[in-house]
């Protein structure tokens, strides 16, 4: 089935674990997102996890400035969390599709 973009946000990944915004990817009307296109990451390196546990500055998948990431499935999007590794926050644009 063809997916269509329906929402966008820019996440600021700072010193505490940040999630995607539920109200954005799971709006009050219409079906929720089934895929999220994240990045390319800007400004600062981050770490991420999608297993429901918050990443830390030293544990999690590294995401470098310029890296993209694709999350498929509402559960995976719901569990995604990210945190910066250094003093500079990351800026992560996200487009949601359904």
């Amino acid at each position, binding site marked *: 089935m063809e997916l269509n973009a329906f929402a966008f946000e820019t996440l600021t990944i700072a010193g505490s674990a940040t999630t995607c915004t539920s109200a954005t990817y799971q709006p009050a009307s219409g079906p929720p997102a089934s895929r999220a296109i994240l990045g390319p990451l800007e*400004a*600062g*390196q981050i770490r991420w996890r*999608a297993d429901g546990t918050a990443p830390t500055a030293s544990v999690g*998948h*590294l995401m*470098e*400035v*310029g*890296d*993209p*990431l*694709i*999350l*498929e*499935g*509402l*559960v*995976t*999007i719901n569990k995604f969390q990210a945190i910066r*590794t*250094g*003093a*500079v926050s990351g800026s992560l644009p996200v487009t949601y599709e359904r």
Partner: protein
Amino acid sequence: MGSIIVPGRGYFRRSTKTFTFDGSAGKGAVGTFTVFTVTGEVLVVALIPYCSTNIGVDAGAGVASMQLGVANATTLFIATTQADTIDASEFWVSNTPTANGIAVPAGLQNIAITQDIQGEVTSTDVQLVNAGVIRFDIYWLPLSSDGNVVAA
């Protein structure tokens, strides 16, 4: 069913730091300022500082200069450069900043390091750097398993 796709990032890794000088400690006062925190051993594939706002100095006596290197070797990348000669739209890749375009000097390519990337403000008397913005872009690769470069 959910899944995660991590598209290839390409061969090199990239970090960037936009540094604003205001004359305070670590931001233009005489002494060092840290641009990137380095863990383990890394290969600096290319390091390119670009000035977006003229570097300015205060009215103090003497002449302020800047250099770029790593902790314990602060001229490893760029030799001592009179600070107020670094102007907007110039690449600071040598002690004669250049606009428009320039071949990246050998001193800013393929350098193995183990220390934080630092600049240093020096002065013939007390003059310091109190204005200006430089964006530092670095392409790098890890050498050790823990090799990493993070904007400070």
